[in-house]
């Protein structure tokens, strides 16, 4: 009963269906499951509700699934980098639910941790609070937000072992660990797959219990969205 699959297509086999909810890790193009997104596009599954902090760019990341109109709805905090997204949204071909970034992160964590609702100050008095339950604690007003889960979560890690234990690298961690906990099935792609026992047990970010399928990333592009550099002094 190995969790290790041969490639992204193989790893998504049998778990996709039209009108499903999918969580996809990453912040901008940093730490996105590149192989799994492409396999998702190639599967042709349609009507996806996608929960992801951003929507990729036109020709990369979740933008690939917007090009093919496979996404029906996005739940995101920021989608500014995607022209095709803008076109589909303005043409009302795409539903969009904006969540404050921290609320989105916490909703996903809550979903994975069996918490159906929680209260937050974020968004009180704004459009985000409309229609939500308000409650006072110690004289301050908070709104209730609900937990989120997905039929499938796709995440990207740096290293993984055959039990599905994962370690992320630098800011490529972002939404990936919570999403791994909130998928009914979680599929991970990793840059390096090691034997069980090679990862330090004190240093595992995502425990294998949350990961049902794992593959090695192939041909990762790791595209940089905004290359910013400085010149060496005296250079």
């Amino acid at each position, binding site marked *: 009963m190995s969790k290790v699959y041969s490639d992204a297509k193989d790893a998504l086999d049998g778990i996709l269906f039209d009108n499903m909810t999918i969580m996809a890790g990453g*912040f901008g193009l940093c730490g996105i499951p590149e192989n799994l997104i492409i396999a998702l596009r190639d599967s042709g599954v349609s009507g996806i509700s996608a929960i992801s902090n951003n929507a990729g760019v036109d020709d990369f990341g979740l933008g690939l699934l917007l090009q093919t109109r496979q996404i029906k709805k996005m739940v995101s905090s920021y989608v500014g980098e995607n022209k095709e997204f803008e076109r589909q949204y303005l043409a009302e071909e795409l539903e969009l639910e904006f969540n*404050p970034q*921290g609320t989105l992160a*916490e909703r996903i964590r809550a979903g994975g941790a069996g918490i159906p609702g929680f209260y*937050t100050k974020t968004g009180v008095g704004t459009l*985000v609070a409309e229609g939500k339950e308000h409650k006072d604690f110690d004289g301050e007003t908070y709104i209730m937000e609900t937990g989120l889960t997905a039929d499938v979560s796709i995440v990207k890690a740096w290293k993984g072992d055959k039990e599905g234990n994962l370690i992320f690298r630098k*800011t*490529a961690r972002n939404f990936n660990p919570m999403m791994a906990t909130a998928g009914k099935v979680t599929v991970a792609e990793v840059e390096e797959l090691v034997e069980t026992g090679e990862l330090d047990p004190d240093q595992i970010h995502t425990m294998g219990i949350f990961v049902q399928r794992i593959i090695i990333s192939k041909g990762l592009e790791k595209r940089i969205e905004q290359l*910013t550099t400085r010149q060496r002094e005296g250079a």
Partner: protein
Amino acid sequence: MAWTREDMARRAAKELVNGYYVNLGIGIPTLVANFIPDGVDVTLQSENGMLGMGPFPYEGEADPDLINAGKQTITELNRTSYFSSSDSFGMIRGGHIDLSILGAMQVSEEGDLANWMIPGKMVKGMGGAMDLVAGVKKVVVIMDHNARDGSAKFIKKCTLPLTGVRVVDMIISDVGVFLINDDGATLIELAPGISIDDARSRTEAEFNVTKNL
């Protein structure tokens, strides 16, 4: 002789206190990092999951796994730690960040902030702005005092959709510096060449003026 963007960033940097944990928004607030006073050591948080943000990398050394919340490539420092988005916003929402400096489209005299959405235009999203203004201990806005058409941005009541209610503690604009608290707004500093009357004529919000200005 109103303040330039650099002047505003330099003035904002005076709000940094040794030992502070600080989140800087995109745009002019990012410039504040260039003006941190000598002897003041602050740790910059990036809400995508990093404490201890370093400067841009040297050419050829950018790491795609290492970006800030503006998606720019950056570097790490000795003190740097990485964490998940939920831990990052736990930190923000839980009141552990001392200071957030960010931009604004409108600020009301009670400190309401609008900086994420213009109805009728394509909305990019609020990102982490609503969480930051709700959770961070002190919120400083840096903005041009007036919009391009000359209209006031510091007004009685925001007309744009809000980012947060009663969240702004200070405005630094090309006109000067305003404090906002339960007693209302107070002009506490003027940019060179700006008179109190100039400030009033360019502002819709009611504000007091501090003594000896």
